[in-house]
């Protein structure tokens, strides 16, 4: 038994490493811990204060671990009127969905958890549509006015945001001529797709902000109106899961943006260094991207749901279709990549 296990591990060491360590589970959880800490420290500096300082000696680096321990140790409170099965189910399943999206992202040549046989971009979007569904389940199961309003807002927002995002990424597909994220990355070795796909990127980025539900699109969890939107009733470890889901979602979509428009694991074309290509560059880009996203979250006001939906359908959708036509025209005249 044990021998069989050891031999199984030995034979599949690479796969297990990819799933469990990098870019799999450990990396995702590590990123959540880092991102929360980084958000707190960085935003604190933007607000001219210090952020956590005491926990873990310097820079408060243990703060999130301490918070997580506190949350796990707390009681799980199920509201009396809640549907307890679905309530628990949603909180367990929610972080899995964005984590599954990450499995499709190439981190280096060959370093990918699940290579979806040439259609990985489509699979990515297919999985991402599950997120609002589970989100509605969590809002509905809690049986609370605030959560249900937040859950319905989540549907409106996700539909309004996801269609432009998908159509914008179709521009990339046309330009690259493939559905496969790995090939899209390879084709960006000499020029990142943000240059030919600039209009598409703008549309993608605004929709992307709606997908990660950060300000100005944190409408479902609007704290000033809905307390914490669909998550209001969750406590303890379930709350931790919800928060994790938010950050994993951020990670997944940011990685997609980097992969589609910023050359994935390629270094900048001007000093493309084959040695550094791969994990190093993707992490650098990730940190720059979340820095910008965090800055955006505190620079702007939150849109109203009607304004956000209007923006999605009235402006982003036509623009994304225009982008597809432009891409086709460019491809026709310039002959593509």
């Amino acid at each position, binding site marked *: 038994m044990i021998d069989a296990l050891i031999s199984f591990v030995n034979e599949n060491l690479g796969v297990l490493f990819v799933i469990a360590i990098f870019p799999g589970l450990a990396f995702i959880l590590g990123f959540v811990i880092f991102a929360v800490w980084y958000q707190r420290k960085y935003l604190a500096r933007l607000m001219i204060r210090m952020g956590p300082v005491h926990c873990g000696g310097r820079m408060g680096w243990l703060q999130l671990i301490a918070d997580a321990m506190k949350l796990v140790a707390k009681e799980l409170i199920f509201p009396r009127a809640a549907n307890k099965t679905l309530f628990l189910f949603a909180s367990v399943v929610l972080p899995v969905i964005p984590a599954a999206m990450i499995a499709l992202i190439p981190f280096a040549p060959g370093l990918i958890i699940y290579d979806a046989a040439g259609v990985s971009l489509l699979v990515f979007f297919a999985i991402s549509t599950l997120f609002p569904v589970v989100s509605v389940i969590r809002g509905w199961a809690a049986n609370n006015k605030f959560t249900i309003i937040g859950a319905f807002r989540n549907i409106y927002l996700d539909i309004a945001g996801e269609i432009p995002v998908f159509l914008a990424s179709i521009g990339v597909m046309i330009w690259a001529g493939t559905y496969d994220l790995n090939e899209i990355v390879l084709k960006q070795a000499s020029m990142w797709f943000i240059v030919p796909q600039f209009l598409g990127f703008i549309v993608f980025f605004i929709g992307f902000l709606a997908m990660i539900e950060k300000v100005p699109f944190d409408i479902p969890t609007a704290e000033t109106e809905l307390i914490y939107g669909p998550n209001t009733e969750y406590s303890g470890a379930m709350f931790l899961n919800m928060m994790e889901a938010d950050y994993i979602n951020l990670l997944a979509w940011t990685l997609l943006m980097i992969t589609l428009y910023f050359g994935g694991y390629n270094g900048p074309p001007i000093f493309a260094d084959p040695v550094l290509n791969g994990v190093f560059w993707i992490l650098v880009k990730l940190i720059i991207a979340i820095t910008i996203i965090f800055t955006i979250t505190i*620079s702007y006001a939150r849109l109203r749901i009607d304004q956000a939906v209007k923006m999605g359908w009235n402006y982003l959708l036509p623009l994304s279709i225009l982008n597809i036509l432009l891409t086709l025209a460019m491809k026709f005249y310039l002959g593509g990549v």
Partner: protein
Amino acid sequence: MAGSEVKRPGFLARVVKPFIHVARHALKSPVTHKYPFERIKGFERTRGYITLNMDTCIGCGACGYACPDEAIYFFPVEGRKYTYPAIDYGKCSFCGLCVETCPTASLAHTDLVELAGYEYEELVYMPSELKPINIKEVLPEVRRFLITTMTKDGPKYILFKEGGED
């Protein structure tokens, strides 16, 4: 309609400039300080913990009459001839009317405010306990004292003195 009277700058100024302003704040130094380790020194007039000089006090009771919170009681002290004020810091609002009223200037403010205790009784200071308190006794963690100043670029803390030299 709205906006007619207010400046409406261009699109970039409305969308990009807020972002730049926010990002620029990352370069500023924080305005907060690590409280138990660093403590801001009060000003000369700062109203805090009140001390009593029993040698000059004549027990006239003016402070008790002036107190709006009825936080001052009078107790006799062994070996002295008057009754002296005791202060209930659970009620005191640090308005300073007692200090101002005192005809012999026996009451005085200090800048100490760290008076919290676990029991209500700890907040009631009898006349003989109204002595100056060394801050090290109530705030043992303190390492440095800061004072606030105003410079051209904004407010700044400067080091008043290290705590150890007290």
